[in-house]
């Protein structure tokens, strides 16, 4: 753990709960895909859970996030209800989006999950808009835009950071640098060693942090979110991490450095965090195990309920395309 201010026990446990729930949810997702009971195109965030856990413990329910196809962990940490999440994965009428959006477009405004986009880079400009609204209405709310390392090379990233900085928007840009964009290594596509250094191009603070270190990540998140909330403007956080299961779950990983991957998996941040919590006396093995068992049960119940839920009616094709007549 980083040699920094350590958050209190409550926060640490909250972070553990969030990240463990995301991990267990991921394990179950991979299980139901593998066993064929719920096949879907799935972008596993396994290995990256500490990042949104640390962000989310610094957010209120009324703060919002905009995330990407690989954003299950971001939303679970933000508090999205599992039944609705799984309902959407299964394409059922009980899903967050009545089955119409699917895994790449999960939305749940009640918990602040405002957008999941399948277009690289597009979470950022829209997050700006949410933040702009908070600013104009003087609401003291914050929006977090999640995105990947490779997304930092697309135009929308550039435009969004410039605008956010000019207008001091209450937004935090969180780049989850998992070292790959699809099959392409970070270094091959990105012309700067640290994405956080790009912040200087926008007169904005940039924080480079080990996203797998709960304490360091907590402090980075707190600094940036406080800054945004206090009207001091946006921050770019580059959180270093790794994705354990390739780009899309089931791909052959042939493009990945085997050693790099083995090393990253050996340093799985979740068991590490867990061991540290016990070692430091923040929680007992017993308590954490009970939590995990309960989470697993919750997830499995959510899946069961999704699998048995009804499909949407076919006339949903004509609904929600345009608003129901108003004038």
């Amino acid at each position: 753990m980083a040699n920094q201010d350590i958050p209190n026990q409550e926060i640490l446990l909250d972070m553990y709960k969030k990240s463990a729930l995301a991990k267990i949810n991921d394990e179950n997702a991979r299980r139901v895909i593998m066993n064929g009971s719920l096949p879907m195109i799935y972008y596993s965030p396994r290995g990256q859970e500490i990042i949104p856990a640390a962000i989310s413990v610094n957010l209120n329910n009324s703060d919002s996030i905009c995330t990407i196809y690989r954003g299950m962990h971001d939303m679970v940490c933000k508090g999205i209800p599992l039944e609705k999440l799984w309902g959407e994965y299964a394409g059922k009428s009980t899903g967050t989006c009545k089955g119409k959006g699917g895994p790449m477009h999960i939305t749940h405004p009640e918990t602040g999950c405002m957008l999941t986009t399948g277009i690289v880079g597009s979470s950022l400009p829209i997050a700006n808009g949410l933040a702009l609204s908070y600013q104009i209405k003087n609401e003291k709310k914050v929006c977090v835009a999640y995105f990947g390392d490779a997304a930092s090379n697309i135009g929308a990233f550039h435009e969004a950071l410039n605008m956010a900085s000019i207008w001091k928007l209450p937004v935090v840009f969180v780049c989850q640098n998992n070292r790959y964009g699809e099959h392409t290594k970070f270094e091959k596509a990105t012309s700067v060693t640290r994405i956080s250094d790009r912040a200087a191009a926008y007169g904005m603070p940039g924080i480079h942090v080990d996203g797998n270190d709960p304490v360091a990540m907590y402090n980075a998140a707190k600094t940036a979110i406080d800054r945004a909330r206090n009207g001091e403007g946006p921050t770019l956080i580059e959180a270093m991490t790794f994705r354990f299961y390739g780009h899309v779950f089931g791909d052959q990983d042939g493009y990945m450095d085997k050693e790099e991957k083995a090393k990253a998996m050996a340093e799985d941040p979740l068991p590490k965090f867990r061991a540290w919590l016990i070692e430091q006396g923040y929680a007992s093995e017993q308590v954490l195990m009970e939590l995990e068992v309960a989470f697993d049960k919750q997830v499995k119940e959510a899946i069961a309920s999704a699998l048995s839920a009804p499909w949407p009616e076919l006339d949903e094709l004509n609904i929600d395309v345009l608003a129901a007549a108003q004038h």
Partner: protein
Amino acid sequence: MMESLNNQITTVEAINSALADAMTIEDGIILLGEDVADPEEGGVAGVTRGLSTRFGDSRVRSTPISEQAIVGAGIGAAMAGMRPVVEIMMMNFATVAMDMIVNHAAKLRFMSGGQTQVPLTIRMATGAGLSTAGQHADYLEAWFAHTAGIKVVTYSSPAEAYGLLQSCIFDNDPCIFIENFIAYAQKGTAPEKNSRIPLGKANIVRAGKHVTVVSYGPQVGIALAVAEKLSAEGVELEVVDLRTISPWDKATVLESVKRTGRLVINHEAVKAFGVGAEIAAVVQQELWGDLLAPVRRVGAPSCPVPYSRPLELAFMTSEADLENEIRLALK
């Protein structure tokens, strides 16, 4: 703004008033776009002049040249409950923001199962005739009309601009509001304050019995001029101003063509794969047996907008082009 002589106002004044009057009623209306605030003179054509002074720098913001960020900011603010009006200076610049418009603004209501909506108005100007050539004068409404989840609106007079823009702003869907640059100075009768013209409803601007002409934007003026001319010969055109290009008012168009038996569609956009094609395709199917002649279309040739004045004039659809198609329809 609207106290002009004889109750006549320009289109610029009409649009400016529509924005001002709407902003007065509802705080959630904000304006974003390049040069839109007063230190920047309210845009190159002055359409938003005075509004930042009146409503404050927070609600009226000149932006960096970043159309993706501009539309994205509009989308996010709309999702949070505001009613942003963003300006993309010229329609061709929408090409750098199509992801935001098409993959996001248009789809978020559906993809979220109705949990979020994007009550965003995107204003954009265009039109040939100013010698701005290939990259500043395209009419791209067919692209947006082909995109589910977004409304496409344009006007044929200052008062129509006022009423339709008001409706776009207060509509709960994303609306593309198309302005014609060359007609900004066009004058017309001032609208009633806060009057709205419903979206999705066409307007029969001239009744007639021989040929229906469906049009929109400044082309409606061309249709009326041709109608005046042909009336002298005893040919009575019924001129339908579509107002909303998508979703278009099938009922009004079909009812009119059923009466006249003949249809010519007239737009400035390139004819091939343009808006007229959809209308022709629907009408020939729905009114099979009622049509007295095939549906005909007037539109630009399949080339970029040329610079040279004679070429530009030949490119632009004219009264002569429309008259010609009408005469063919009457044969």
